[in-house]
């Protein structure tokens, strides 16, 4: 337990605080100030320089839609997720839970829905007390449905469902929200971007497996010299600039001279793909036309997912190796005595004991994937490729800030992104448990 220092003692302990001051100062200047500034500007119509008008929540309403439906649903879901994630605290129990649920719904609806509805509807149609009859009816219906839904969900929630089901509930709820958003007036591009990111996160989880396997293989090498050589071999690629790596892969996908198409044509695999295309009618593998991996809307995402094959990440392997090296030889000896085979050693010993590293890697991967945009910007441009198929939220934020001149809106996108990262990190922390 860290020692608690009272205020009175500070004058005796001041050198300790003096030492942390430089770091604290740098963190405040380079991390917190920009973040606070971004929050501030997300409430402004700001072009990054001169134009700076306070517009309240307009940027958020542009992104998330002005319909009360969405805001109510979002408010309820935030409420439920808070309860789910916070779990036990007293304030989330009993009647207080419902009061909170109602309060968030009401406040969310009033702030985000009403303001938008009133300003928009007043210009186009007659209103009653600032609201059109249709809007009011829509509000009441949606609020009632949401509250009933929340009650039902809460009953289900508290009756023996496992954490996994809760996580799935949160995920599907989020997807439901996406779906609603995409059908309504919010910024479809942003929500589409989140759907793409969701897909990439799932793919990246799968792409973590080869690194774990590679680390286990290296760890099990009997020869220490060979193990050392492999470790070095995994460190060497770290010094290759990311840009070179990116250009190599870009060349790999080149439709005319790229390695991938050359392999497909030389091995005759392309004929198989054309045959499969004939069955499923994708329209991407066509006779006499080499597949354009980064130029075809249907191939861009698969290409991005395949990027980096065989997906043995350098940092990941080194991280897992560090975890594996801390496993005592005694454990293996005991396992051998118990007759544990090589696969069971992996599932019963190694994997559980490196779960801390897997979790760290998972968090870093989720955060990095959510924030990703540089690679896509370089290979596909700021339009996000054909039909904007790879216009991920990070790229959309960049585009708004530096291409469109909507720096305020970009800040708002950043905040939405931040909320998603926070939720996913929290879910990760809470539900990806390390039980050794």
């Amino acid at each position, binding site marked *: 337990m860290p020692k608690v220092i009272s205020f009175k003692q500070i004058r005796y302990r001041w050198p300790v605080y003096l030492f942390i001051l430089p770091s604290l100062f740098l963190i405040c200047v380079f991390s917190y100030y920009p973040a606070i500034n971004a929050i501030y500007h997300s409430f402004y*119509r700001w*072009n*990054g*320089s*001169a*134009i700076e008008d306070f517009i309240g929540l*307009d940027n958020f*309403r*542009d992104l998330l839609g*002005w319909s009360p439906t969405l805001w109510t649903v979002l408010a309820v879901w935030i409420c439920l997720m808070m309860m789910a994630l916070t779990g036990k605290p007293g304030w989330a129990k009993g009647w207080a839970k419902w009061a909170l649920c109602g309060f968030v719904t009401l406040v969310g609806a009033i702030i985000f829905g009403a303001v938008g509805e009133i*300003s*928009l509807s*007043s*210009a*186009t149609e007659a209103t009653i007390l600032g609201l059109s009859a249709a809007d009011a009816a829509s509000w009441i219906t949606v609020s009632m449905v949401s509250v009933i839904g929340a009650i039902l969900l809460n009953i289900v929630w508290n009756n023996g469902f496992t954490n996994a089901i809760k996580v799935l509930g949160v995920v599907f709820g989020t997807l439901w929200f996406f779906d609603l958003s995409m059908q309504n*007036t919010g910024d479809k591009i942003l929500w589409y971007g989140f759907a793409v990111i969701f897909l990439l996160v799932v793919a990246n989880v799968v792409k973590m497996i080869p690194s774990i396997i590679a680390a286990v293989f290296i760890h099990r090498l009997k020869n220490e010299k060979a193990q050392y050589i492999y470790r070095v071999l995994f460190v060497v690629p770290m010094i290759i600039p990311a840009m070179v790596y990116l250009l190599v892969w870009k060349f790999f996908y*080149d*439709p*005319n*001279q790229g390695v991938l198409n050359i392999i497909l044509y030389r091995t005759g695999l392309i004929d198989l793909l054309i045959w499969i295309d004939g069955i499923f009618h994708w*329209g991407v593998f066509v006779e006499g*036309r*080499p597949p*354009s*991996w*980064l*130029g*075809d*809307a249907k191939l861009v995402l698969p290409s991005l997912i395949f990027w980096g094959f065989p997906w043995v990440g350098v940092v990941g392997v080194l991280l897992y190796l560090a975890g594996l090296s801390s496993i005592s030889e005694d454990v293996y000896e005991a396992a051998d005595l118990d007759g544990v085979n090589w696969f069971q050693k992996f599932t019963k010993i190694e994997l559980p004991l490196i779960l801390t590293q897997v979790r760290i890697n998972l968090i870093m991967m989720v955060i990095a994937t959510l924030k990703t945009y540089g690679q896509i910007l*370089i*290979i*596909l*441009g700021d*339009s*996000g*490729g*054909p*039909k*904007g198929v790879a216009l991920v939220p990070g790229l959309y934020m960049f585009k708004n800030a*530096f*291409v*469109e*001149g909507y720096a305020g809106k970009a800040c708002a996108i950043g905040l939405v992104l931040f909320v998603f990262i926070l939720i996913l990190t929290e879910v990760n922390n809470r539900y990806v448990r390390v039980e050794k």
Partner: protein
Amino acid sequence: MADDEIKEENEGSKWSNYLAIAFLLTAYITAVVNVIIVKKNEVVSEAGKGGRVVIRMTHWQLEAGVRQVIDEKAREFEKVYKEQTGVEVKVVQNPINEKAYRQYVQTQCIGGTAPDLIQIGMYDKDYTRRFFRATNEYVTRPNPYNKGTDLEGVAWADTFYDGLNGALDAETLEYYGAGLSMVTVRLFYNKEILREVFGTDAPPKDFRQFLKMCEDLRAWAKKNDMTGFVPIAGSKYQLNFFEKRYTSPLTFDLMFKADLSYSGALDKMETALAYIDGIYSLDSNQIEVSHKAVREITKQFPVGFMAMQRMDAGFAFTRRKSAFIASGVWDANGYIQNADFPVGVCDFPLPTKEDKEFGRFLAGPLSEASVGISMQFGVTKFSQHPDIAMHFLMYLTSRKVNEELNRDFKWLPAIKGAKVYGVMTNFKPTSDGFWGSDFFTGGSYSQAAYEQSLWEYVEHKTTYDQYKEELSKNLPKAYALDLQRAFQTTLERRLVLDATFSFNLGVARYATEWDLPAAEGVKLSETAKLRQRYLWESRISNLVEVYYQEYFKNLLEKGNKMAQKVLSLMTQNPFAEEE
């Protein structure tokens, strides 16, 4: 382990630790010394007090030769300026890739660390006003470096082909910097391949002949087993030139109808309103035919060209993987230097009037009479030595230096009377022809919607009907957002204009009563009066934008369904405040 062994091992690790520390210290000290030397050489003491003044300039022209030639001219300027004033100057170039240029300039300007001279462009006009020094006081004076020529005594602005109109901000009536060159776009071709295939290196005369040549080239490449050869080297970058050259002449009639302000060009508000009002649609014959012309060209591009970069296309051309490539004068030097074959330059071959498919829509070639001066540099407000920076700019735009500069990096000079050399004569702007404008440029949202749908259409993956269907689905929302933003900026521009107008009115009326020498007061007042006239023009041009708003409102009142749909798709009602 024996004690001796442990001791030996510890000593060994001690030595390696010392070695590592020594290595790190050496690297650190070298870095520090290096920084000190660089600072000593570059960082500045006050001009005229014996110190060396550093002028930094940033641009995105990474094309072959540009940096080297600017460097040569910078060294010359340093000598000339020292001889004339005794001040030692050092000009440092900092070229930035065009992909990162906008971000670089924006962050440097906002951070207050921008270099002295910056190439103007790629970012909002607002940045120029806010972060650049107006150069009005220089443009009316003669360029001192034109001494001894017939331009001696001529106002600096009047020595440029465009009278420095390109550097004038019509809303604030301030001049910002000056440009170094003129640019046009042409078709480059491999003379050797043309001679081999067609027996002559004559370029194509018209569109049909161009397409026929491309087909013949394809057949020739197939016969000779030339894997990877395509008639035209292309990327998304190259597509833009063909689009501009073939779309505008074929859609002139529509453009003329959509040009509500009679300016000779379409802006984002006009295209949006024309679409909403039904003046043009994706069903219009001209629009369909112009798309088809571009698609005929892209048939001769490499597969997947939309995901390729400008450099990929240039590389394919200079490595004989293609016979043609479209680009601007800025790439001429690079292509000529890197190709081991003679490079020809010609204008884009247009369809003839007799062409059954395109002829009836063709207005004529696209005029280049309005080509302005490019590669424009401005002096930032962060410059410690703006006068010296301006002098360097004036040096580069003196006739002799500008001629040499453009001769060496193979661009077109910006100064009247400067000679154009060799192959560059093919780039001289042609004034004959019609003006024209694209329908899908301007608004960022409509542009994005257009580009995203166009991608697969020009790559021959979708038909025109599919392209039309997809784009029609996205255009109303895109136009809604573009119009919403345009209506907002109209109001802001009006405020800027009114402020400038009021200021000038005050100066015109009261300058003679200020505590100034009489002659200066009169001069200020007269200048302000002159400026008022131009400001009226700007005010009227702003009124045109107000007229666009009224046009939109009028469509709403008439019950135009598309206008109502567009309004409903706006995220904020632009007329809410007025009502």
